[in-house]
């Protein structure tokens, strides 16, 4: 990741995928595309997230070669979207991504199915609801917006 979004010239089309805060960060790039009269599309990610990831996969898979993508989202939502983007076939050279806000994530308790929010980088946590000691994995569910927490100790 770069610290600042960088405009990559002469692409067939530019895509921007961001939430409110992300759009302000990407704004200089969007303005550049407007000045150049380049074709572009902005997808705004609001609060409503059901099926979102499938829709994004669909949207991205419809794009032609030579399309360039900018993504700017809260850290918590970035990793799963990157998985989708790469699953659809975008390579490192075809997109730039930026995170903002706190580096936290949701953990899905394997025993009670409740979600506990934790700081990024935590390896073992207690489920907030059933108090089971969980090992945080990188197995991610887009529908639950969470990483799976496995039983940490038998």
């Amino acid at each position: 990741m770069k610290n600042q979004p960088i405009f990559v010239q002469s692409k067939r089309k530019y895509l921007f995928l961001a939430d409110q805060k992300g759009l302000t960060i990407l704004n200089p790039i969007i303005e550049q595309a407007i000045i150049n009269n380049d074709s572009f599309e902005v997808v705004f990610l609001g609060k409503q997230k059901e099926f979102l990831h499938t829709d994004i996969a669909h949207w991205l898979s419809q794009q032609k070669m030579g399309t360039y993508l900018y993504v700017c989202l809260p850290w918590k939502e970035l990793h799963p979207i990157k998985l989708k983007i790469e699953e659809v076939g975008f390579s490192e050279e075809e997109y730039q991504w930026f995170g903002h806000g706190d580096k936290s994530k949701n953990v899905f308790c394997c025993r009670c199915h409740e979600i506990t929010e934790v700081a990024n980088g935590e390896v073992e946590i207690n489920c907030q609801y059933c108090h089971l000691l969980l090992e945080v994995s990188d197995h991610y569910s887009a529908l639950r917006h969470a990483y799976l927490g496995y039983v940490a100790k038998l």
Partner: protein
Amino acid sequence: MTYIDNLEQFPYPFKGNMYRYSNNSIPLDVPKSVDITSNYEEEIKLKRQLLRDHPKRCFQSLSHTLKAQWEILALVMNHLVNYYPDKFSLTKTNTLWTFRNLILNETQQFIYGDESTLLQQPLDFIGRHVQEDLILMSERDGNLYLDAGQLCFPANWSLAFDLGMSFREIHYPIPGFKEEKLDDRILNFLLRLEAGNPWGRNNWSLMAGNRLDTSLETFDDWGKGRKQVTAENAGDLVHLRVEVQTLFRLSRSNGILFTIHTHLLPLRKLAEKRAWLEQFYHILQELPPYIVDYKGLSLFKDVVIDYLKVQLEKEDAS
């Protein structure tokens, strides 16, 4: 849980003295999604108890799956009456269907396609009449998604967590799957699956205990068995767990029905077959650490190998 007494009926899964992950699917000889064994009544009772006590753990569906669920119900009912005509019957008067389960002495009438005429969703209903777990994979944009399932006997995974995931996402935890592009290869194979040409495969693991309901949700409980295996109890405590899986393309919704029938065999029984004993001993000894670890065998594999070795030597001596 009781096990199959008749060793000939056990779906012993191994070929050769080595095991690796691969696409081990083969076309089915008999295009049959379900199998009725001597444990039928006991397992159906357990299934229904689990569904009653833990509905979210055992059944999940997304709202757009009802059409495909009806298709699964029809497919499974057809198999039941065609392959077990003395145990099941189905009569259709226009859209009014009458399904009879003669083993359990149950009759259900319903209007095909009308959910309000069944107490459960179609997949949840038909799953209560078969020993298999039933999973619906929907196809969209060249990918497969787990959009509905009835799962009472999972091998340590969570349906509630996996709901809505793509085929690759589901298999993400398996070591080497992505690196060796197995996920892509198997997905491409599944996308080419055609209606009328079902495939099947086996998966296996070792269980310390004889529970069928080894859900991820209860792992903190049943997983403890792994610490209790000794040379003395291994023959009775440790079971070879085999999943017989089938894959059927659904012709109308274009989804895939994935069925899982779980069988358990205690090692003491396995050891009665010299060829199996020898082969399984070699396979376990040779099994690479990443598979041992993923299958959850690290805590008791060595004890099991010792047990199998002693059985082999006993037979050599006699």
